[in-house]
């Protein structure tokens, strides 16, 4: 047993933390978020050069063949920086989709492109009626000759408009909410019949409503087995959960640090407010909640790769519950302890809080995962 970072991991951690601290200032981040594209292409190229986009890409496909722990290290630092680049959708969900569902051909085509920063992926898995249930799929893929015709709508597809390829979950059989009868398709962004309605998200990102109106794809667009894609989807979403949990830990740590600094410097009643015992204990609760969350995020990262499916699901859901609750507590209290300052758009605090809040619902909220955990034994 060894729940410590390896030397390589420490190096990675130092690198990405240095990058965030030196180059990813809050003002710059705001500018990138508001730009046409919504993020910085330069950064993306840099990420590729540093190998970050290829952590989950095997060496044969031009990646590093790393683990979820390295992804978590990156994501934690990205949390601190409130990074807007579409790492999660492309280099976590995208690569996982290919690893767990992709054919040799698909992997050979896409993984090197992802690692090189040349291909962006998005994943449409939610629908307006589905809430967090991955099997609640009504988008239809109808067999038509050699290929398929897709009709339906996918909701809140993160980073869809900037993606080159969008993966969508569809129903090819079974009744609504059946586990069986779900299939995945790779759709090129320019496919006729695919329309997007893009919007900004409250946390500074981008997403889109995705409309499929007789969108036609070839047989080679099928990702994984027809009708049996649910286990792949679950595995991929679990990888996404680990990534956002680590990101949330980075945010929580940043909020704790900012709040602690504020407590030490802000003077009221002739002394730093950090001398008030109620605020001290609140800060302790925040700090401890953050550390407990960090333990769970890395535990889930290890188990994502190492454990069998039931144990993996339990670990991932447990982490999501812990981080959902801790995130809400820390986010709200960081604002509260900053007083009226915490309400301003100018300070980073509110923006961290918004991203943490969005992570709460991403891939299922605490209630959903508590239920999944409770019923997993």
């Amino acid at each position: 047993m060894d729940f410590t970072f390896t030397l390589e991991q420490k190096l990675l951690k130092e690198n990405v933390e240095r990058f965030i601290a030196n180059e990813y200032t809050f003002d710059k981040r705001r500018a990138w978020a508001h730009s046409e594209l919504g993020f910085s292409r330069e950064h993306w190229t840099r990420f590729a050069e540093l190998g970050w986009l290829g952590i989950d890409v095997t060496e044969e496909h031009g990646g590093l063949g790393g683990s979820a722990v390295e992804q978590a290290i990156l994501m934690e630092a990205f949390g601190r920086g409130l990074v807007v680049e579409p790492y999660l959708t492309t280099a976590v969900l995208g690569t996982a989709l290919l690893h767990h569902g992709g054919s040799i051909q698909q992997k050979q085509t896409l993984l090197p492109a992802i690692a090189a920063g040349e291909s962006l992926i998005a994943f449409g898995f939610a629908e307006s009626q589905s809430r967090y249930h991955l099997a609640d799929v009504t988008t239809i893929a109808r067999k038509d000759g050699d290929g398929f015709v897709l009709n339906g709508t996918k909701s809140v597809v993160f980073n869809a408009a900037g993606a080159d390829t969008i993966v969508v979950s569809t129903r090819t059989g079974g009744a609504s909410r059946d586990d069986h009868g779900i299939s995945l398709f790779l759709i090129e962004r320019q496919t006729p019949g695919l329309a997007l309605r893009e919007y900004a998200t409250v946390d500074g990102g981008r997403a889109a409503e995705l409309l499929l109106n007789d969108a036609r794809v070839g047989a080679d667009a099928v990702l994984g087995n027809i009708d049996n894609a649910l286990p792949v989807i679950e595995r991929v979403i679990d990888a996404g959960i680990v990534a956002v949990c680590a990101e949330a830990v980075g945010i929580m740590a940043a909020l704790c640090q900012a709040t602690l600094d504020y407590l030490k410097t802000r003077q009221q009643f002739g002394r730093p407010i950090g001398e008030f015992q109620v605020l001290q204990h609140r800060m302790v609760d925040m700090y401890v909640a953050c550390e407990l969350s960090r333990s769970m995020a890395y535990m889930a990262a290890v188990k994502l790769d190492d454990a069998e499916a039931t144990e993996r699901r339990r670990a991932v859901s447990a982490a999501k519950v812990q981080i959902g609750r801790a995130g809400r507590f820390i986010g709200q209290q960081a604002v509260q302890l900053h007083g009226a300052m915490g309400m301003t758009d100018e300070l980073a605090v509110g923006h961290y809080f918004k991203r943490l809040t969005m992570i709460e619902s991403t891939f299922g909220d605490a209630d959903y995962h508590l239920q999944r955990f409770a019923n997993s034994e």
Partner: protein
Amino acid sequence: MVTATAFNSTLNQLAGASLTMDLTLSDKERAFQAQVRAFIAERLPAHIKRKVEDSLQLVKEDYVSWQKILYERGWMAPNWPKQYGGTGWTPIERYLFEEELALGSTPRIIPFGVAMVGPVIIEFGSEAQKQRFLPRILSSEDLWCQGYSEPGAGSDLASLTTRARRDGEHYIVNGAKTWTTMAHYADWIFCLVRTDSAAKKQEGISFLLIDMHSPGVSVRPIRTFDGAEEINEVYFDDVSVPAENLVGEENKGWTYAKFLLGHERTGIAGVARSKKQLARVKELAARELCDGKPLLEEQRFREKIAAVEIELMALEYTNLRIVCAEQAGETMAAESSILKFRGTELQQAITELLLEVIGYYAHPNVPQAIAQGWNEEPIGPAYAASIAPLYFNWRKTSIYGGTNEIQKNIIAKMVLGL
């Protein structure tokens, strides 16, 4: 001021002497309630009602036009003595009125004039001040804002540094106020200013009324992270204020400020607005699906709503105990602090439920959708757009007007004698 015996007094003294404890309305109360309800139904403009129902952004005209409607009916200042334009209602009638305003989806009354500076002028102002300011507050000709907090003085109000130097028949004011809600709408600001810097902290402060249109007053909006622009910084650069705008005595302003804090009890808990909002949670949860069924049928979520509903009931009946005790002629201590901190906790809890109801549709950021005059097709359900901003914005309720931590300090000191 009540101290340690609090457990046997204050709230515990269900005072008065009627025939029976009765939680139903009397015929007279019911008639009053019906009258208010009918008036609101008839006179509240539909577009304003819709904005309030859907938590959309209100603009100045929305507030003012509704306040003028109340003013015409003579209902603008139920908390004022009748001679100044009050209604002469009992505490219970005032409570019922507040409740109907909430249930009828009316805009909140802007508190700075009628609820805050008005009572101070009535209690401590000169006859000239009363004649000059009170009618214009009632009619909403003047909108007010509050100049208390400063960049360096938040919870520690008394450490303020905005100075007012006497110069003949004027004060010359220099300094800055911050977190000033609605300053960009306001015609007047009531300010705590330092008139004697040699005196101890809380002494040497005066209560001054300043025309926002005076030369040297400037307003800078402060954007909050939810995207709203409702608070401001207000700068005073050699602003000349006639000495007649001093309320009461020079250097006694702290007394007037304390009078104001905790003066207003009715409605501070916001129970009725919270009930209305909780009904909205249920309505939306009945529309959202979970496993093919309405989310509201999910036992877990039903019980989550129920837990908040019960906490709200507890606050409601505590509020009623206080109102009924007031009706029976009792004086209160720090009840407003209790109502405020519990009230805001529950308001916030309800916004959390709203957020949970809409799931992924909390993500889209569509500020246009909650502003005036947007008619495009919504992203996801139409009701979703306002909810995340509401959740974010509502974090302010436990901060503004004395943080909840400060409220607990007050209760510890004034009620428990700690």
